[in-house]
């Protein structure tokens, strides 16, 4: 489903957040990308939804080489990849309902389908009761849930979450992770970038650890720290 082939990325200022990354993620997998701040987790996600293009190597999503994809095909690719942003990126002048409807309207869904899908998505994240609220009226955890609802409402086969539990209390974090796990159970490939040790240790899923721009560990049902340090 997602395949990184000797991927390196170097910014114009010489900073190299990723180097020589080889990674394969299969459909319906649940993968944690872990590492300290600045280790390249978010960059790796950005390469998957093509907010960045690699300096060298290839990134394949659903068999498509993202370096060679035509610009006109980009919207179609992005509809296949839902993204939960670390900073939520909700539109402040739109209500929760409008924020989610916006995605469907912007991608050409009919009014009937929109009215049917939004309550389902809001129900999954437990936010049906806040549909008419504005993002500024919501707590961080609630905004994160809305962000998840927005990312999954058009049922993309891939869901990326960048620090979904960052700045949230442990109880809320656990709730968010349970929601993401439910989404994964429905067959969605889930890639979560995090440095939340508790979350990773509790979930026991595949762990890909990044350090100094490289993958230093790829472990099935892994914990945050490598076994010798646990």
């Amino acid at each position, binding site marked *: 489903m997602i395949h990184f082939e000797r991927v390196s990325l170097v910014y114009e200022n010489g900073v190299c957040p990723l*180097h020589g990354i080889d990674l394969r993620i299969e459909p319906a997998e649940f993968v944690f990308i872990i590492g300290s701040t600045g280790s390249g987790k978010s960059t790796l996600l950005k390469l998957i939804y093509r907010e*960045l*293009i690699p300096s060298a190597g290839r990134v394949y999503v659903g068999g498509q080489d993202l370096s060679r994809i035509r610009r006109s095909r980009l*919207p179609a690719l992005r509809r296949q990849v839902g993204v939960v942003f670390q900073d939520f*990126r909700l539109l402040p002048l739109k209500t929760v309902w409008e924020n989610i409807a916006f*995605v469907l309207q*912007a*991608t050409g869904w009919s009014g009937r389908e929109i009215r049917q899908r939004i309550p389902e998505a809001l129900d999954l994240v437990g936010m049906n009761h806040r549909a008419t609220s504005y993002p500024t009226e919501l707590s961080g955890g609630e905004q994160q849930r809305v962000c998840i609802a927005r990312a999954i409402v058009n049922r993309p086969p891939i869901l990326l979450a960048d620090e979904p539990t960052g700045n949230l209390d442990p109880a809320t974090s656990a709730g968010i992770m349970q929601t993401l796990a439910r989404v994964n159970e429905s067959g969605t490939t889930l890639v979560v970038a995090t440095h939340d040790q508790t979350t990773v240790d509790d979930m026991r899923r595949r762990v890909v650890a990044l350090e100094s721009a490289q993958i230093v560990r790829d472990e099935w049902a892994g914990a945050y720290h490598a076994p010798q340090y646990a």
Partner: protein
Amino acid sequence: MRLSTLDFIFREAAANVRRNALMSLACVTTVAVTLGFSAFVVLGFRNAENLLRHLAQELVVATYLKTDVTPQQRKVVGRRIAHIRHVQGRPILVSKEHAWRSFSATIPDSLKGEVDGNPLPDTFMITVDTPSHVAIVARRIERMPEVDRVNAPYLEAQRASAILRFTRLATTAVTLLLILVTAFLVMNTIRLTLYARRHEIRVMQLVGATNGYIRAPFILEGLALGAIGGAAACGIVAAGYPYLLHLVHRALAFDLPLINPGRQLLPFYGQIAATGAAVGALGSLVSVRKFLRPVEYHVAVQRLRPQDLERLDAERDRLERERIRVAAERTALRSLDAEINGMTKDLNGVKTATGEPKHDNAGA
């Protein structure tokens, strides 16, 4: 296009105007003021052109017929002249009898006896639509067999034609320049509103909206704001132009053939509103392009060649070796530290047994 798509575009455009009321007002005001000002300048030029054309119509082509032309032939010639392209209205006939009567009234009676009969010919006085056509019309008439000669104001027509051409050119240039200025101002105002909403555009891109879909509400918004601004400019002209005419009429002792503020201006109002709408839509289209560049272009990423990768690999290997060396040194230092600690402990044990003061290794 699906109905839901259209509905989305209209709703988004309306919501954008509502939510960014202040910027929308700024945009409408910019269009209204610049187009209003432009309209007055253009009206000034159009009036000047009107005036010149009116003066040019005073230029008359005099056609003298041969003296043996019968009244029947004269009638036919008059009809043929009236049908020539660019001839305005019917040619005015000054018959030889009428001409003689007018002429004889101006000469002394002593001279009248000297003239044998009526030597004057029949004459047609012809008005041409524009000065540039005077020569063409005169040449066509000269070719008629019944015509003796043609007296046309060639030089005056040439001058009037040049002045008219210049005025027309100036009107077009000034109109285009003012439209450009309006477009530039509108573009900048719209760019400001777009800058405030760049995150919205980014989110739309990231959720998979096509560029056309993102662009459409903004263009519709620009079109609507431009049209409203254009309508406001029409209001300014409708209120200000009659007042200006009143001032001109009061200042001059004679009447000038100026453009009427009534029905004559209706098509001009339509042009102003259409220009506003077009400029607004165009301004939006150009402005939104900047914000629709692919997301990855916002971040400068180096393209690496194989030799760059080798260099990176070498650098990484060097850093790894350095890391291992530092780690080994740290380990060696730690074991040395442990050894010193052990020796200090032993020394203190000996000192306790002999009653000497203990050695402190904390500062070591």
